[in-house]
């Protein structure tokens, strides 16, 4: 009867009873302690986010005391390490956007095609082999893709277009696109497979072919999932670093022409980190300002993806 821990003061226990109560108390305490420990472990992810925001904002605030925000957004030169320093983030953004567009022009059609094929057309055995294979392709380190872009894809492109410089956004973008294909394909495919069979059966019963069913029934029904796959692809492309650092050159260049070399936000951060910048210098702070820009960009993507998922969610 005195099993409730709060009650022990009311009925003073004795002997074996006391021992059992003490045992029980310690057991409850231990349970609480373990729960607290697990909770703290779970909070690490929250602390990570706070840490990221804290570090980026703290260093960026110092940076923006040196460089007016207007200059940062409107200047058309990026020469943070020169004596005549200019901080126009547009220069780096142009490289990031151009390479991302090339990558998406590859990844979205290929990824969608593969997803539709695997979900609607492929026989079971092909799917069983292809899915793990795509996963392997997604697991290859990006530095390897960078090497591949620089020393395999660029020479092939130069064969078609001899004036192409050794470093260019095109080959980096193409390889980046192929790197993103597995993510886009596998998430889109999951979304399409989640479409109930009865919808397809209805379509087939009306005499539609697999192609008509896929395009007119399955893809619209799975649209929210496919859209979030695209968004994930965009945020991967924007945040990709090593392929661009290796194959696109690291010279800041305000251009939207993929045939030219250019630095991206991420490549600039790598370039600065490779050098020896004293902690606390303006050069050191620029990489945090660049990182903050990148972070805001990917955050916007994540939020857009979330909204898309919510808006176009088809409930069955």
């Amino acid at each position: 009867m005195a099993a409730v821990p709060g009650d022990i003061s009311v009925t003073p226990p004795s002997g074996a009873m006391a021992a059992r109560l003490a045992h029980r108390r310690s057991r409850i305490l231990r349970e609480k302690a373990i729960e607290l420990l697990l909770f703290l472990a779970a909070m690490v992810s929250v602390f990570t986010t706070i840490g990221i925001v804290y570090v980026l904002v703290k260093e960026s605030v110092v940076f923006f005391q040196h460089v007016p925000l207007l200059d940062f957004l409107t200047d058309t030169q990026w020469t943070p390490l020169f004596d005549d320093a200019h901080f126009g983030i547009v220069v780096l953004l142009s490289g990031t956007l151009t390479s991302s567009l090339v990558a998406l022009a590859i990844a979205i059609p290929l990824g969608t095609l593969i997803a539709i094929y695997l979900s609607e057309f492929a026989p079971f055995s092909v799917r069983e082999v292809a899915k793990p294979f795509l996963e392997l392709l997604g697991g290859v380190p990006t530095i390897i893709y960078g090497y591949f872009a620089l020393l395999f894809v660029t020479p092939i492109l130069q064969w078609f277009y001899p004036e192409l410089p050794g470093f260019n956004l095109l080959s980096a973008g193409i390889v980046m696109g192929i790197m993103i294909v597995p993510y886009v394909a596998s998430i889109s495919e999951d979304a399409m497979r989640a479409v109930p069979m009865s919808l397809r059966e209805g379509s087939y019963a009306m005499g539609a072919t697999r192609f008509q069913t896929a395009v007119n029934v399955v893809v619209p029904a799975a649209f929210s999932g496919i859209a979030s796959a695209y968004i994930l692809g965009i945020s991967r492309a924007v945040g990709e670093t090593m392929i661009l650092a290796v194959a696109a050159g690291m010279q800041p260049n305000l251009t939207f022409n993929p045939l030219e070399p250019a630095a991206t936000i991420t490549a600039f951060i790598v370039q600065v980190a490779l050098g020896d910048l004293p902690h606390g210098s303006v050069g050191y702070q620029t990489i945090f300002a660049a990182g903050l820009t990148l972070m805001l960009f990917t955050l916007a993507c994540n939020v857009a993806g979330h909204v898309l998922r919510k808006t176009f969610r088809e409930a069955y």
Partner: protein
Amino acid sequence: MAYVKDLSAIRALIASHKRWDLVFALCGFAALMVGVLTFVALFADMAIQGLPRLNWEFLTNFPSRRPAQAGILSAWVGSCLVMLVTAFFAVPLGVATGIYLEEYAPKNWVTDLIEINITNLAGVPSIVYGLLALGLFVYQFGLGQSILSAGLTLALLILPVVIVATRESIRAIPQGIREGAYALGGTQWQVCRDHIIPYSSAGILTGVIIGMARAIGETAPVITIGALTFIAFLPPAPMKTEAPFLSFDWVMSPFTVMPIQMFNWTSRPEAAFLQNAAAAGFILVLMTLAMNGLAIYLRYRIRKNIKW
């Protein structure tokens, strides 16, 4: 007569629809093949360029100015040590978070906050983790550009992978197992320790392997915290001849890792160094492929064998 004409028109229409169907199927298959061929080309390119350089000296030499004598000793030792630190932090934290969210967490805003955070962190570019580590671990906590900093950074980076794998495999355990254990008077932790963790361990292992395969190939965050690109010494040995025999000096040592060594060689103009880069890349690809392959195989086995 009109009937026959209609029929043939309909047949033509059906035939054209079927043709489109086939064309699309072929397009899809071709798209898949683009992925496959890229992968094969990449692997073959690495193998053709790199295999001639692969020998015992390549694994046991330090990097050098002379490409023919350069090796990856400090790089692979560094990679292994960083992975050790990463696993040491990522596995307990990830598993604990997964257990908390699946077994303990009440339904409230704190739990929602944690879940949204994990989803968001999975989408943060890896270089941002590098900036976090540079600002926080290297300078604020004074850990320096050490193996510990790198290991912690990569641990945070792969944490979402481990957490998601843990949660998925815990969710697959039927409710009856928990109810049976509770009915015998088990506490929540006893249920977790004796049932939930053992039954989900294979799934967790899969997630850990995939996460580690990702961590071993990550270059950008490790460069950002300031790993050196030219290291011609090894970290202090973890064993000592006198008591207490174990030394943890190595966690604070400067280091380099495989992908950085490869990046260093790739960014040099001499062809001989590019060959070294290919050889290092070949080893790296083999390692990540082996790890991912093992994870995929494990998952396949789990799916086949476990019938609750």
